């Protein structure tokens, strides 16, 4: 076949059309599925926010304009969920990142048994989230779990109670579970970025007399910065939407103290079957997340322009 050497020169029209459509044929099945199962429901969900849709009420379904948003603006539970989301996301992301970075730095050094150690410390990541939630709920349960007794023995708590039923402490339960579960993700990503740093840079710096702290600040950190920024941005969005642990461990209680916006949406849809109101909250959450992402992009742009 000589024409294969000049693919675009001497092909008949039918062959050219077939060639042009080839990438579309490869990607069509995935695209069709994504559009019907994700994009169409997204648009439908946005429309639900302006309609009265309750699953068990056959007379619902009418267009009600901004009514849901008016209710929402007076919904104290929603504003509490919003504050809880900030707290939940901020504490989880910070602690996951902090411990994940330390773990990545520890694993970046070669030592005997590193492969095994790595497999063991990354294991929580493989634990299904519902099981991680149940597992930690059991650990916090004074009847079968050791944690309340240990905290009591250390004097952190006045009595070996379940922190999940204490309105002031309950949020720490899902946060601890989330940190345990999420450290490996940060560690894996940061470790990959660490291993991509050229080793000779460190050698050159050592020869020039730079100490470990100096090497960390002037080589490691600048190299990691882009990975850190993008990972934290993505994880923040992801964790603020991550309701599994809360639904499993506290179901938003006690007294809505651990309800975050994502679990509040789920409760409205799953327990009250009020799809319209759930979609209205979801739309507000979407707008907030978009605003957050835009803010980060703008911030990054201004910082880049300055530098």
């Amino acid at each position, binding site marked *: 076949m000589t024409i294969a050497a000049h693919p675009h020169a001497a092909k008949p029209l039918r062959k050219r059309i077939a060639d042009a459509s*080839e*990438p579309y044929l490869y*990607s069509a099945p995935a695209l069709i599925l994504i559009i019907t199962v994700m*994009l*169409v429901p997204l648009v439908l969900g946005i429309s639900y926010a302006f309609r009265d849709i309750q699953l068990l009420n056959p007379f619902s379904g009418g267009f009600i304009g901004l009514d849901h948003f008016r209710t929402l603006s007076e919904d104290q539970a929603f504003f509490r969920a919003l504050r809880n989301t900030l707290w939940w996301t901020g504490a989880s992301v910070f602690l996951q990142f902090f411990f994940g970075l330390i773990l990545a730095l*520890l694993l970046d050094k070669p030592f005997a048994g590193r492969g095994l150690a790595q497999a*063991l410390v990354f294991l929580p990541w493989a634990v299904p989230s519902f099981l991680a939630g149940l597992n930690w709920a059991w650990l916090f349960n004074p009847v079968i779990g050791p944690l309340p007794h240990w905290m009591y023995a250390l004097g952190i708590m006045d009595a070996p109670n379940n922190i999940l039923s204490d309105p002031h402490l309950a949020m720490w339960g899902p946060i601890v579970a989330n940190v345990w579960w999420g450290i490996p993700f940060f560690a894996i990503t940061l470790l990959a970025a660490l291993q991509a740093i050229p080793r000779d840079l460190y050698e050159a710096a050592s020869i020039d007399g730079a100490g470990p702290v100096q090497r960390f600040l002037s080589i490691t950190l600048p190299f990691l910065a882009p990975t850190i920024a993008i990972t934290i941005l993505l994880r923040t969005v992801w964790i603020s939407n991550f309701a599994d642990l809360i*639904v499993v461990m506290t179901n938003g209680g006690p007294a809505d103290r651990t309800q975050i916006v994502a679990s509040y949406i789920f409760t409205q849809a799953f327990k009250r079957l009020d799809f319209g109101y759930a979609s209205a909250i979801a739309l507000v959450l979407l707008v907030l997340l978009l605003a957050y992402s835009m803010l980060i992009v703008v911030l990054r742009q201004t910082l880049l322009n300055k530098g």
Partner: protein
Amino acid sequence: MRTSKLLLTVAHRLAILAYIVVALFPLFWLLKVSVTPNDLLYSEGVRMWPSRATFEHYTFVIAHSAFPTFFKNSLIVAGSTAIAVTILASLAGYALSRFNFRAKYWIVALMLITQMFPLVMLVAPIFKMLSPLGLTNSLTGLVIVYTAFNVPFATFLMQSFFDGIPKDLEEAAMIDGATQFIAFRQIILPLTLPGIAATLGFVFTAAWSELLFALMLISGNDAATFPVGLLTFVSKFSVDFGQMMAAGILALIPACLFFLLIQRYLVQGLTAGAVKG
């Protein structure tokens, strides 16, 4: 100088050890309670290992509860999802890796968007869409939903694996007269087997763990997946800790197996991606 180096090494190993202990302790406790006989559970509260171990909770869970059904349902759902996603993502990832076409930018943008918005937004509309089709309370419905959710990420993953394979290989085959699809199937796919295994593992674990959509879409015991079954069990028989934890350990096995298979590959794959930029 040498003692300070030794101290540093000791501190390093101790820190690693601390991480390992924290990572494994909750799972160890799960195992410990699952083998503690009921009469010792309360009297030996915080002991590290019961004075007498038993497998009675496991035999009960396997022989007298609905957990084998949940386990089977979860295997079917996670397995089918993993296979379906890997096929769709290989095709789409190949298109993104090897072709330059007009809609490529839009396809990437669409897939990125699906990664950004909260999936919990879709709980209500997907329920409304699937219910008239008879796909609520059905494993097929779950497979369709999970497949769609996992395809975008898997496509990017597969694309990065294809990018790592030189183009000359299929070009040589096509000069010999093969169509691009044959070259893809017979030359490129076999070379991507590690990538395919990683994708299968990722998706299987994700589908095995999914909770919220399963809770929303499944109501009876017959089609319940493991998370739904376990949560119903917890709220119904919340005193039978031994049995619940035995069930939990069983749910952990497939996810951990897949993880151990792919974990070594995880950092390597990401490193390759990071080196490429």
